[in-house]
Every structure is written in C-alpha cells, then in structure tokens.
C-alpha cells in the first residue's frame, strides 16, 4: 500500500514554506523573493501548481550594526516583485519547479533636489529540482525534502536612468547562482493540522558582467503552522538570514551583508479545492549588519494565489 502525501498539508506548506524561503531584498542586493513561490511545490505525482506571488518590500530602515539610525534624508526605497511559478510533480518524491519574475524598484530621497528613480523589468528566473524521500502520511509524522536549483539571469542588469543604476536597483542580478535547499516538517497529529516546520537554503551567487557578485546567502527558518478545517490555515515563523558582503572585482563592498532575524506571519484561505489565496508579512525582529551604515528591510508583505491542476 502506498500512501500519498497528505493533502491537508498543502495550505501550511504553501504559506509557511513560502515565507521560510523568501529572500530579503536589502539596499545592497537586488534580491527578490524568488524562492517564495517556488516553494509551493507539487507533491503528488502528476500534480501541477501555478502560483502568482506579489510582494512589496520596503527598504527604508537605516541601521548601524544593530542600532537603528534616524534617516534625515527621508529615503523611500521599495521593491515590488511579481513572480509566476509552476511546479510539477513527476513522481510522489520528485518534482520540478520553475519561475519567472518581474520587478519594479523605486528609490526616492526626499531631501534630494532630484526626483525619484525607478527601474523595472524582467528579473531572474529559477529552476529547482526537489526530492522528498520522506513525506507526511497518516502513518508518518515526518517529511524531509532536498532541493537543487539554479538562479538564471534572464532579466535586465544594466537598466539605465541617467546612468546605469546600481546593482540593487537592477531588475536582475545578471549572474547565475546555485541553490541548495532542504526542509523538515513534523506533524503533531495524524491529520497534520498542526506542524512544526524548519527549512534551510543556501544560494551561491555568481559574478555578473560588471564583475559584481551579490553576497552568498544562507537562510534558516522554523515555526508552526496550523490549519482550521480544510480551508483556513495560519502560520508563524522566525527566519534567520545571513549574507556575505557583496563583492566587485573580488573586493568586498563596504556596508553590505549582515544577519537578520525576521518574524513571518501568514494566513491562507482555500477559496475552492483548487484555488488558495494567501497573505503574509515580514517584520524585522533583530539585525546586525556589516559596516557602519546600511539601509535595510522595514517590512514586507505579500499576496499569493495558487491554483492546483
């Protein structure tokens, strides 16, 4: 007898996992939460998910190390990203996911005589192969997944306003990257309505044609997810994120990189058996950033819609 992956876990995994893997975009990074949508993976052979995810990421906190610093320049910096992803389960254990993104960055320094700077365009894409050797069933409380993927610079990395904009304002990183991913979930009950989830991923960033390399990034998250009935679920998690400083021509860029801990709440609601909508947020808890001054995440919020075929 073969047990299929437990469907009720879908909602929890969708929104909890989404936030677990969301990449923060900081001032020093064009990072866009590409992995967010791709985490909505198909887990049953032949299953196909199409997910749309939109996130608004406000990056206006000025921080010196771990200390908040008033920003007298009245900066308003945010990124709005839209990601369309597809995930297809080839078997109950193997699935493949792909996504494309479209990004809009905005930078407005209130004290400046010059106007707002914006950029937009196709961003990076991601291709991820996932293997789930152990999954939650009525007779198994554990689930383990492993993933291997690549970040593909499909977008524009030399967007020009008056001049070519800085890397953090480019829609795309302009460089390939490698992704290692893993997760573990534990179901507290047979129906798996309450789960403990943890995940980790590592992204190795390549060098773009301007010899710029975004800092390699490590994320680790853990939290709880609970579903009420078959339609509504919510989760809460903490995520630790660490990035190395960015580099240009091999040399570190000052005031890039650091460590963050964010609180990530999420809710979701299954409108139908196939369509689920969700909202999530990202709230900084603590951070300790490299260098003496950085702009970083103030908050982020996301909307998602996922359709299962």
């Amino acid at each position, binding site marked *: 007898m073969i047990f299929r992956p437990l469907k009720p876990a879908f909602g929890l995994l969708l929104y909890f996992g989404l936030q677990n893997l969301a990449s923060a975009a900081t001032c020093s990074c064009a990072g866009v939460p590409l992995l967010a949508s791709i985490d909505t993976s198909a887990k049953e052979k032949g299953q196909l998910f199409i997910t749309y995810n939109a996130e608004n990421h406000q990056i206006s906190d000025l921080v*010196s190390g771990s200390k908040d610093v008033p920003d007298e320049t009245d900066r308003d910096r945010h990124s709005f990203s839209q990601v369309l992803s597809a995930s297809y389960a080839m078997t109950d254990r193997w699935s493949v996911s792909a996504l494309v993104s479209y990004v809009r960055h905005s930078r407005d320094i209130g*004290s400046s005589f010059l106007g707002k700077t914006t950029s937009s365009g196709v961003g990076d894409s991601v291709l991820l192969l996932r293997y789930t050797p152990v999954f939650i069933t009525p007779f198994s409380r554990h689930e383990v997944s492993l993933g291997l993927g690549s970040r593909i610079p499909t977008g524009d990395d030399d967007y020009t306003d008056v001049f070519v904009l800085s890397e953090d304002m480019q829609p795309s990183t302009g460089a390939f990257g490698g992704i290692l991913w893993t997760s573990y979930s534990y179901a507290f009950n047979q129906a798996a309505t309450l789960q403990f989830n943890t995940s980790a991923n590592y992204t190795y960033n390549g060098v773009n044609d301007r010899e710029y390399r975004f800092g390699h990034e490590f994320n680790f998250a853990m939290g709880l997810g609970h579903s009420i009935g078959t339609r509504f679920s919510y989760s809460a998690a903490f995520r630790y994120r660490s990035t190395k400083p960015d580099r240009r021509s091999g040399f570190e860029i000052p005031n890039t990189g650091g460590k963050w801990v964010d609180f990530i709440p999420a809710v979701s609601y299954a409108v139908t058996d196939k369509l689920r909508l969700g909202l999530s947020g990202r709230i900084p808890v603590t951070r300790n950033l490299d260098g003496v*001054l950085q702009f970083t995440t103030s908050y982020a919020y996301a909307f998602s819609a996922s359709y299962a075929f």
Partner: protein
Amino acid sequence: MTFKPDPNYNLALPLRTRARSVGLLKTFLSTTLLLLFFLSSNAVRAQSPPIEVLNSGLNDAWYDPETSGQGFFITVFSDLSAVSLAWFTYDTELPPLDAVANLGDPGHRWLTAVGPFSGNTATLTIYVTRGGLFNSEVPATSTDLDGDGTITLEFTDCTSGVVSYDITSLGKSGQIPIQRVAAGNIPLCEALIPQEPQVCTRPEPDKSHGPNDPPITNGTIISRRTDIVDGGPGPDGIPPLESPVFTANLNSADVGPNEMVVGVKVGDNIRAYPHDIMNWHEIVNDTFTIDGPPERATLSYCPLTGSAMLWKSFMEPGDETFGTSGVLYNSNLILYDRENVNYWSQMLEQAVVGPQVTRIPDRLQVVDTTWATWKAMYPETELLTRETGFSRDYDDYPYGDYLVTERLIFPVNNSNDFRLWKKTRVLGINVGDSSKVYPINVFTSAVEVINDTTGDMQTVVAGSSELNFGVVFNRQLEDCTVLEFEAVQNKLPVVMRDNEGNEWDVFGVAVNGDRAGQQLEKTNSYIAFWFAWTAFFPGAEIHQ
C-alpha cells in the same frame, strides 16, 4: 699713412693722406676714434631693434665710412625733444696751396645744427658762426639766425641713420648714411627704447582635464557614459551639509592632532573641514564673506579618492549649491549642480554630463593636511563641528579597511599602474598633456621646496612628509619673471622664500617683501590617492 678699416667693426678711418687735409682736427679725430676703436668692446651690431623715438643713447660720434675724415657729433636732448648736431667737414673747394691757417687746416669747416625731433626724425636748422678767434671773447661771433639751410636726421635703429642736408647758401643738398664710430652707447640706446609690453609665453593653467581627454559625445565628456557608475545611495543619499556650524575652539575633542582636515582661506574666512565629517557628507555648501555680500562656495571631498576641492559658486542665488549625485567616475565623486543639473566630475573639475558640459568651476585653493599642521598655520581658524543635523557616528569610517588595503570599490581606468601603492597620497599637477605627482611621504620631514617644471610650466612645489601637506604653484609671474624659491622652516604658514627675498605662504601669497600681497598662480593640482590620479591622468611622471 693709411689706416685700414676693420670690416668686422665698421670702424674704418682711413685718414686721407692729402697733405692739405692733415690738420689738427683730423689728428684729433683720428686719435679719438682710434682710441674709441680700441676701447670699444662691442662691434656696431648688425641687429638692433627699431627705434621709434630718438633718445640720448644716440649721443655719439657718427660718420660715413665712404667719407671718413669728417663726421658728426650728435646730441639728443630727450627732455627738450631737441637735437644738436655738429658737422665737421671741409670747404667745397680746396684752399689755395699757399693758404695758411694759424691753427689747423684752412679748409676745415664746422657746421652746427639745432632743432626739434619727433619720433625718430629731427629737423634741424644749420647755423654757421663767423668772426670769432681762438679762445677769445672778442671779437664777438655772429650767427645768421635764419640759418644756412636744414638737416633732417633720421634714425632707423641704434646703429644707423641718415643725414639729409639742404644748404641753401651753397645750393647743395644730399644724403649721408651714418653709423657710429664706436659701439659703446648702443646698449644704452637700446635700453632707452620703450619696451613693448612683453608677451609672456608662460602657460595658463590648464582649464581642461588633461591627457585623459575623451571626445564629447551627446552632452557627455566622458567617452562612455557607462563608465559612470551608480554608487547605490542615490542622489543626495550621502547628504551634503547645507548649514555648516563652526567653532573657534581649537581644543575640540572631536578632532585629534593627526586627523586630516581640508583647510581653506577665503578672504578672511579661515576654516577647517575634518575628513571624519566629510567622509559622511562629501559636500559642504558654505558661505564666505570676501568683499561685499556673502558668497557661496562648495567644498567637496571624495573619501574614495582622497581629493578635496573648493569651487566658488557661479549660480543664481537660490539654487547655487551642489549635491551628491550618487554616481562616480573612476571611483571619484560626481557632484550635480542644483540649478541646471549638470553632473560635475570632481577630479576633472568640470561638468561632464548635462546642458553645460565642459564648463569649468572657479576653483579656490585648499590645503589638505593634519589638524595640528593647520592649527599651526592658522591658529585663528574655525573648525567644522559635528552639529550637522545628521545622525552619523563621525568616529566611524564608512568604508572599512579601504584606506589601508589595495581594495577598490568601483572600477577605475588604468588600474594596473602599480608604480606606487594605490592609496599613496600624492600631490598631482596636470599641465596640458603633462602630469606629475609628488608622493607626500617622499617629501622631507622639514618643509621641502622644489623648483621644478611640468610640461611648459615652471612650478614651485612645497611639501612636508611630517607636516603632511603639499602645494604647487606657477612660479612664473605675469610679467614673465621666474622666481627661484627655497624653503622656510618654522614659520608657518610661510613655507618658502624667493630669490628676491619675498616670503610666501602655503596659499602662494607673498606675505612680506616687495611683492607682498601678490599671489602665485594656482595650478591644476591637488592631493589624491595614486590610483585615482593615474586613472584620470595616465602616464603621470613620479617625482623622485
């Protein structure tokens, strides 16, 4: 006896050997002129500047070699604009063989002429004096005041002229080309020629940006606009200081004696801007009182290239300030002006993108040195305080280990020039296609002064490794005088003394001596890190 003329000296005096012409005067002349010949150290020069106005340097004995044995004594009275001429010559016919004279030759004649001159020409009236005796008051001489004719005397230069005579009483006229018997007065004559204002060939300070001079394209002076990179903070993301606050407290704990400051002296305004503050703001839009109403000027300091500039504002009141553009060229600050939004390369010192591309700012001198040195130079200085209105930790350096490593943050041209360590502070000067740097740490501990040349500009460099400063000026003055300098020790801000005895301060101003108050011309020079200088001015010579 015949005296052979020396063709090299044009001093031909073959006295005629005619028996009748041998007389006292001729003997006198031959003796005198021969003496002049031997005493004269200079030949009559072939080349002499044209003479516009007769001068007393023409006072001399003149003659025509073709009629040697007679000649002219000419005296120019410059104050009276008059000329006196004495023409010793002979009668128109030889006297009878039995004619005798008690003194001299019976055929000898003197003519005198007097008259005014204008320019290089004198018009003289010839007078013949009659009835006198040797060294005697009686009988009284008589002179026909109407004259016996006219002489026109014209000189083209200090060595030659023409006597045109018209002796009406004889009905004779003619021209006699004349030259000096001896050359001794020629230098005086030439010295008295009014000098044209000398056209100085000294090079002007190069108003362009030097050898790395790419074509102007599409309103951009930098060859590839993509060479200008966005640093990330965005325009004014590194906030300029608009209302700087200064203190006269020289013992401020905010700046240590070895910390670097940018010192400026504009009129009576003497101010120091610590690097620690400039690292975070890069621009101070400041106000100075010079003469009259306050004037705006912008001090900029690029922490990545270690270069400081002070530009006088040229813009209309209201928007006469600069901002940080957030972009860089060769890792160097690009400012933008808030009036017309031109983008200005700090180290190229001109607008490189925008509606007024290639425009040059009005540059003022700065002295980049330590606080201790600046205080010693100008104890009355004011110091920029940390009351900036911004929450910055000015004790922190924003770029990590940047100052002590080879690390660069942004791409630069000519980055493989390893003749010096990349962050070496150099005093650089650029003149046309020539560029030279003086590493600050190579100066002697005491003030060192170098009389040098860069391109076709003669320069004077003053610097000290211990005092940690360096300045360079054009040592050729507007009147083309080229001064030679030597170092002055222990007398800051005076750092050098010239060969005329004037002493000059670190801003190139003569503080005493005959030239007190004069200022040596500023040059296209400033202190920067070596990598930046060679990025902008490849091939710069390094002073050893």
